[in-house]
């Protein structure tokens, strides 16, 4: 295993982050005036501009209905943006034909809130379904994947500690185990970017932390960028390098996790006693050491 030196527990080293940002001139993901208006008239996103450099893990926080989920889904066009542009590297995703979009989606792994595993398929089939964009229909239908894919699936399952579950049906697994399978499915796509939608919302606090740590470790191992929608501000502060605060479909905050002061949280979420939340983070830190 090629672990890099930095402990995933501590907050990221700011200088290292600066380096990452400086190294790349073209950001790997760029959103330009992204707007999404639903048929009901709800304006979920109001001209969002965002650049994500390669390898950066960022958290998207904000109240329910702020447009976090819509933003993530507009990037891989599970939700069709109303206007604006999305660039992944040199490719403009908005405006791609259906088949070109499918090829582009292979570069973006997605992890879901309720795991979104196909419950009646086995763990292995769920992981291998991440390769669907690469194999033809008949091969996927008869489950005859290339040996390289099968080996990679074994490696990933081993990495998340679920190799012995490979032939279990997905609905036999616990929540944390299912989310690990979901992570494997996203990673086997060999993505450059992970889109993570509330990965911990259905999990207990301990499992939540394990899952967040796993996602961030894997991003670092593989040099992936990730956008993580998350409700839990404390958890976000612990693991990510950059936090974006979204409110009413517009970016209200963009900065390092330690810049999240009570004032900032008030602008994002509204009036509330935020000292307790931040306090809790520090206590958690102490408890975790």
């Amino acid at each position, binding site marked *: 295993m090629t672990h890099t030196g930095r402990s995933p527990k501590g907050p990221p080293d700011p200088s290292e982050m600066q380096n990452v940002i400086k190294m790349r001139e073209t950001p790997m993901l760029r959103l330009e005036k992204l707007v999404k208006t639903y048929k009901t008239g709800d304006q979920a996103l109001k001209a969002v501009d965002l650049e994500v450099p390669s390898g950066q893990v960022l958290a998207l926080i904000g109240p329910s209905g702020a447009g976090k989920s819509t933003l993530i889904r507009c990037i891989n066009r599970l939700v069709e943006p109303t206007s604006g542009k999305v660039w992944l590297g040199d490719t403009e995703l908005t405006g791609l034909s259906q088949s070109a979009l499918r090829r582009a989606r292979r570069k973006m792994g997605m992890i879901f809130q309720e795991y979104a595993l196909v419950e009646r*398929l086995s763990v292995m089939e769920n992981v291998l379904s991440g390769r669907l964009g690469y194999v033809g229909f008949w091969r996927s239908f008869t489950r005859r994947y290339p040996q390289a894919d099968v080996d990679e699936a074994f490696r990933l399952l081993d990495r998340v500690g679920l190799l012995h579950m490979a032939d279990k049906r997905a609905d036999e697994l616990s929540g944390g185990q299912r989310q690990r399978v979901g992570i494997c499915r996203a990673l086997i796509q060999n993505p450059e970017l992970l889109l993570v939608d509330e990965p911990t919302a259905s999990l207990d606090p301990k499992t939540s932390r394990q899952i967040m740590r796993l996602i961030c470790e894997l991003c670092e191992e593989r040099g992936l960028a990730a956008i993580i929608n998350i409700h839990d501000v404390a958890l976000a502060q612990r693991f990510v390098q950059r936090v974006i605060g979204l409110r009413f479909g517009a970016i209200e905050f963009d900065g390092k996790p330690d810049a999240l002061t009570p004032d900032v949280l008030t602008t994002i979420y509204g009036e509330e006693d935020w000292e307790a939340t931040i306090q809790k983070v520090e206590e958690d830190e102490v408890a975790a050491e």
Partner: protein
Amino acid sequence: MPVYETAGSPPIWRRRNRNQALAHWAMWLTGTAIFVYCWMQISGATTWFFVWDAPRIAGDIWDRATPPRWEYITQLGRPIWDTLNIATLGTIIALCFAVPVAFLAARNTTPSRYIVRPIALLIIVSTRSINSLIWALLLIAIIGPGVFAGVVAIAIRSIGFCAKLLYEAIEEIDETQVEAITATGASRWQVMAYGIVPQILPAFAGIAVFRWDINIRESTVLGLVGAGGIGLQLNASLNVLAWPQVSLILLVILAAVVISEWVSAKVRGAII
């Protein structure tokens, strides 16, 4: 909840206020009037002499029909085999058509909501509204009497039934699983095979077995109009008033119905 206050007495609670009560009574009155009219019509078209005579006739038929002519069963082997085939092949053919129709009719999988979906729904409602005996009559007029007409009649009648239940199952699937498969860059057909099919497979199996059970029942009587199976023998026996044979055939049909219901209950239990 109206409460009436009358001078000199305590307030009275009633379930309905005056207008509601009137509407309620008017509804019942209309209903009763319609029923009485219907009954008058039926009674007017009935020869009551036969009805008063019915107990005697029933007793007479019973005397003639018992005991059943057991040795006749040797001639029923082929008709029973035909009946089974009509039901089974009819169900299989129906499923082959019902699956695409269901996908075209389900709101979340139909390629076009305003053109294809109404056509699929029309196929469902028209095949479903018409009894398999009527389909059999029609097919006999077209392709001649025989087992083949029975198979096709059962198949057509079952398309609408299976497609309706199946498209309701498709509309109830968990969309996030489909979304997850789409997000991997899977093609339309792969999304179908990985995201949708595994979710509806149990419903599909249940529907298939359920309909097979119903089709066994229906195929036993298709012979009455000449579409093969054990109903042919029933019709022939009735025509010559061979009551002992009729009673034996009825027993066989009863047994077939009970066995098919038992089999389908077992299979459904095993699936779910």
